[in-house]
């Protein structure tokens, strides 16, 4: 179609697409799906870390964690707003999350079992997320790119905080070191799978790359993540649970083993350790808060009427 060709030409020139610009339906839909999925991930992502808010080991750590979880809610807000510029409504997007129709990042279906997991999420999960998200700061859709700039800045701050938690553990007692290693053992492979299925098994990648919604393939991002993370693990004195992991002089990258893709698909299909709990927590919050939202709406409608009455 001639319109699509013109659209693609603008993208190829590096012109940002803005909300009022014309755009192909498929572009719009792909973006709404991806941005809302990203927003949902921020919201559901509050839960595993939130699980340690009441149990953080110092007041300072408690404050840092609380601020972090709060940032995630904020990211959710920017991202829902970015999706709204494409005509999606927040209510609809949330309904899709609660009905199970929309996805969120599978990583949040794993449990946080010790304090070290809070460190591991910051270091590994935020680390992998940043690798995925930094390219999106240059993506073709303006509002998404701009939201992502803000998100990435905060995420990299969170990543350092997570690393700092683990660093403290790794320079602590033997029990603390064991706790850190155990967390790495459990979070390593799920974080490696955060970049999505192998390129060979990934759908839609080509179109998204052409539209500059996606700038690197899953496998490229995964390699970048591993290359960045292995030296950090070495620095901490922790062992990455992958016997096949080794530096490859020739490629200048780390070679690594194959994740358990069966697990990946199982978790995606709803059979992870915490899928039910995470969704239920969101449903409970939504349903338990219904009367509060209704009250706020009812009051907002009353207030101007009262003012008019008072003025009359």
């Amino acid at each position: 179609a001639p319109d699509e060709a013109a659209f693609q030409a603008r993208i190829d020139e590096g012109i940002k697409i803005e909300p009022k610009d014309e755009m192909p339906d498929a572009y719009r839909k792909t973006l709404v799906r991806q941005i809302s999925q990203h927003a949902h991930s921020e919201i559901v992502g509050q839960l595993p870390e939130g699980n340690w808010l009441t149990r953080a080991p110092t007041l300072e750590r408690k404050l840092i964690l609380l601020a972090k979880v709060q940032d995630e809610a904020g990211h959710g807000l920017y991202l829902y707003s970015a999706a709204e510029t494409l005509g999606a409504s927040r209510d609809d997007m949330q309904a899709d999350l609660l009905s199970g129709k929309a996805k969120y990042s599978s990583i949040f279906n794993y449990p946080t079992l010790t304090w070290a997991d809070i460190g591991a999420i910051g270091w590994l999960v935020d680390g992998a997320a940043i690798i995925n998200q930094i390219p999106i700061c240059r993506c073709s859709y303006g509002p998404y790119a701009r939201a992502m700039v803000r998100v990435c800045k905060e995420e990299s701050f969170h990543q350092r905080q997570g690393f700092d938690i683990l660093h403290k553990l790794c320079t602590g007692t033997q029990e603390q070191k064991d706790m850190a290693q155990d967390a790495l053992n459990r979070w390593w492979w799920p974080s490696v799978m955060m970049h999505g299925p192998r390129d060979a098994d990934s759908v839609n990648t080509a179109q998204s790359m052409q539209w500059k919604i996606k700038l690197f393939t899953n496998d490229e991002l995964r390699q970048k993540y591993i290359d960045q993370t292995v030296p950090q693990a070495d620095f901490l004195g922790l062992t990455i649970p992958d016997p096949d992991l080794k530096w490859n002089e020739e490629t200048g990258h780390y070679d690594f083993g194959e994740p358990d893709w069966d697990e990946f698909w199982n978790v995606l299909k709803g059979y992870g350790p915490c899928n039910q709990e995470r969704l239920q927590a969101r449903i409970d919050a939504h349903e338990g808060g219904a009367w509060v939202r209704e009250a706020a709406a009812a009051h907002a409608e009353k207030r101007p009427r009262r003012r008019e009455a008072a003025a009359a």
Partner: protein
Amino acid sequence: MEEARYEYLLQLGDSDLILGQRLAALCGHGPALEEDIAMSNVALDLIGQARFWLSYAAEIKGGDADEDTLAFLRDAPAYRNVLLVEQPNGDYGHTIVRQCFYDVWHFFVLQALMQSTDTRIADIAAKSIKEVQYHVERSGDWVVRLGDGTEESHRRTQAAVDKLWRYTGELFRSSEAEQALVEAGIAVDVATLYEPWRAHMQALFEEATLELPGDQPMQCGGKHGEHTEHLGYVLAEMQHLQRSYPGARW
């Protein structure tokens, strides 16, 4: 006097901390995203203020006391928070009413403490009061919205008021430690705050179409370590890690 000052700082710090801890548990579970963020802000402020008070208390105590040994290694009978703040979150009506009762009292306390002859206390109060000014506005707004919202929200909010009212009397009754400090101009005489607090509540409740409960016997005890059954559970959860790995640094 130092013992009294220590006790008084615990009263201030523990109340902020326990309320902050209660609010932190709500994070990610609020009725709307914006609410979640706003409530986390209040929790952040309160825990931040608790750190100021407890750090000062720890300096007076000396030895290897610090904000964390005070927060994580005292059992319930050594906690000095008012009973109001340890009450469960309940539904959002309970959360908001508890917050409103506390915020308005908290504001008047800090306002008075800005004149404390203990300049460290005066400084902390001055630093904190702007945050608390915002808390007062926010919880007050919500009391009005919920009280004068729907029939259901009115009913729930009035129930919260009726349930939590019995914990407000303690806010205006001085402990022995406090009395000694009032005479030295260090602490505020909380009894003098009752009238302005009540006037504020009366105006707010009128706008919210809610009723202030009548006179009734009040529950006290928090300031000398006699708590409700809730605090033990709050602390068991909060302190588990520090208690389980004694001496570890985090």
